[in-house]
């Protein structure tokens, strides 16, 4: 599989270059260069509305401590069994509230087990336009957001951006594309419409997606 064995490469490139000597027509712009999507005046409101539409549970908490309690409540509704956590300082601090009768596997040990009941991760950014969560491989790895039936995302309000343009700008600022081998925009729980075009929630990915959104990281951050 080494380049030396890929003689087709040069031939394909030669054919492409030869083909492109002739220009192809472009449709003349019939419309203005104005906005394609309606402007969003209240991002949080939009985010919550979109979550309701795409079956994402959105919980607002005052700070991360309150988030931890909220997550404990979600875990209480899930069958007993191992949960998988992204090994991040914030989650390490919150984890004691979740250890009641459960084993925790950290992402520093590897990917989630097949039998994990839930995964808990951070996110790169949240997107109001579509009610989405942008995760990366830094958020506990690739499997963290897809293996278990429940995925819980811990986020803070400063992570919420207005639209997809803003999301990509945020990712660039964070250096996410360069640092990660995977980025994923998650919108709602997994689903399929392959049977009679009827939407069924919970296909191969999680059945439940829970976003716990704290106004600020901690109480003392209030200015």
């Amino acid at each position: 599989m080494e380049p030396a064995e890929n003689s087709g490469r040069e031939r394909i490139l030669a054919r492409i270059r030869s083909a492109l000597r002739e220009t192809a027509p472009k449709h003349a712009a019939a419309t203005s260069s104005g906005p394609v999507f309606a402007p969003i005046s209240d991002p949080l409101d939009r985010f919550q509305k979109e979550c309701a539409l795409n079956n994402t549970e959105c919980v607002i908490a005052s700070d991360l401590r309150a988030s931890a309690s909220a997550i404990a409540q979600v875990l209480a509704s899930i069958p007993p069994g191992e949960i998988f956590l992204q090994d991040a300082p914030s989650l390490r601090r919150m984890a004691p509230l979740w250890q009641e009768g459960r084993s925790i596997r950290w992402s520093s040990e590897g990917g989630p087990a097949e039998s994990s009941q839930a995964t808990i991760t951070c996110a790169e950014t949240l997107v109001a336009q579509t009610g989405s969560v942008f995760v990366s491989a830094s958020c506990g790895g690739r499997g963290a957001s897809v293996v278990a039936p429940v995925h819980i995302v811990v986020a803070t309000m400063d992570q919420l951006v207005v639209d997809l343009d803003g999301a990509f700008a945020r990712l660039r600022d964070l250096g996410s594309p360069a640092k990660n081998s995977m980025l994923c925009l998650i919108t709602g729980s997994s689903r399929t419409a392959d049977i009679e075009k009827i939407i069924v929630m919970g296909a191969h990915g999680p059945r439940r997606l829970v976003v716990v959104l704290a106004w600020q990281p901690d109480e003392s951050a209030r200015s």
Partner: protein
Amino acid sequence: MSTPAQEFLRSAAIKSADLEHRRTIRAGIDHYEAAVDRAGARFLDWEAARQRLHEIKWEAVNHLDRYLLEFEMRVKERGGHVYWAETAEDARQYIADLAAQRGVRTVVKSKSMVTEEIDLTHTLEKKGVTVFETDLGELIVQLRNEPPYHLMTPAMHLTRAEIAKLFGEKFGGVESDDPQHLVAVARRALRKAFFSAEMGVTGANFLVADTGMIALTTNEGNGRLGSSLPRIHVAVAGIEKVIPRMEDLALIWPTLARSAVGQSIACYNTLIGGPRTASEPDGPEEFHLVLLDNGRSELLADSEQRDVLHCIRCGACLNVCPVFRKVGGHSYGTVYGGPIGSVLMPHLGGLSKYQHLSFASSLCGACTKACPVKIDLHHHLLHNRRNAVQSTERPASERLAFRLWSWAMMGERRFALLGSAARVLLRGVQALGLARTPLDPMRPWTEVHAAPAIPKKSFRALWREQHGAS
């Protein structure tokens, strides 16, 4: 051994008369159109979205070498491999060899038209590799040993009862035909495969040049599992799939979702760049991107139809096509069906073999209107027809007929004379009760229509009577 054209005619005749099929498709399409309308409310200016998408793809395709080279460089920087395959054989051989060399026994595969195009599954199975289709619709048709019915919804021609019966036979543990339950059955059955497979194969909706990542869109999460759990990830994509910038996806993702299934956006829009990095907890150790030519560079050279390569494989053209609604997805007999298939197949598979698909259209233009990247689909059907006449063996009777037609139309007196003669003939056929018999020159028409009233006088004759010669 019948030709693709004969097969198409046969299947089209059967399906067009199948009222149950018509009902099933109509219900599915109604659902789709309602969803598209709802998703459309999110766009202030849908036409602007289409125009911009067209411009993005135009830029990519018309600078294809530049963007492909940038993409390849960045994939390699991430530790991935890029293989350029000239033909379908080339591509599947590379993947089969890779599987053999790495001791792959099980492959999990997510939905990818291009892997159908190169017939990957059969190739791997012949080498003793077990291949699991993990997209629910693809899984269903795989179990039935059928090709996919539709670009986006491979099993839309089946009812839940039929699917329940199928799952019961293949998996067991089926208690009802409730779609929720059936999905759970499929999930259980495939999970074992996901966790044990050595190789995951996916397609790629887009190849993002400036970050060296592939963009993969799914709703089910099967593409995510398939590119996360197995130790080798192979992605296959046509060379035309490249886009210049990651930021282009901010427009592409919502537009694709609306056109494809009437969603605001798909559930999982993933960007994958190479194998796992050293600091990541999981993910494949190897990443291979197979770039497929297989006739695309020739289509690129056709500057009139180059925009066919802008296709983002959303399937909207199939959904709005009145011919598709009658003949169904299987009648086309090709990997790509519907309007895009009718335009594309002559280029990928030869004009002689596939021109009939370009003729099997009333040129209504619904496809062109629906296409989110503004491909001139129905005009390209005309172009293919012209090319077919110029470069292949059309029936001699047809060539003669149009030469005669051309001669007749070059003079008003001969046109009027021939017109009169034709009307006299048709009136005679009707009067003698010969309509619908082999002696009826309008038989293809009169077989399926009540015979039309043939007027005694033409317009020009009436006008002359009323106004004198002009």
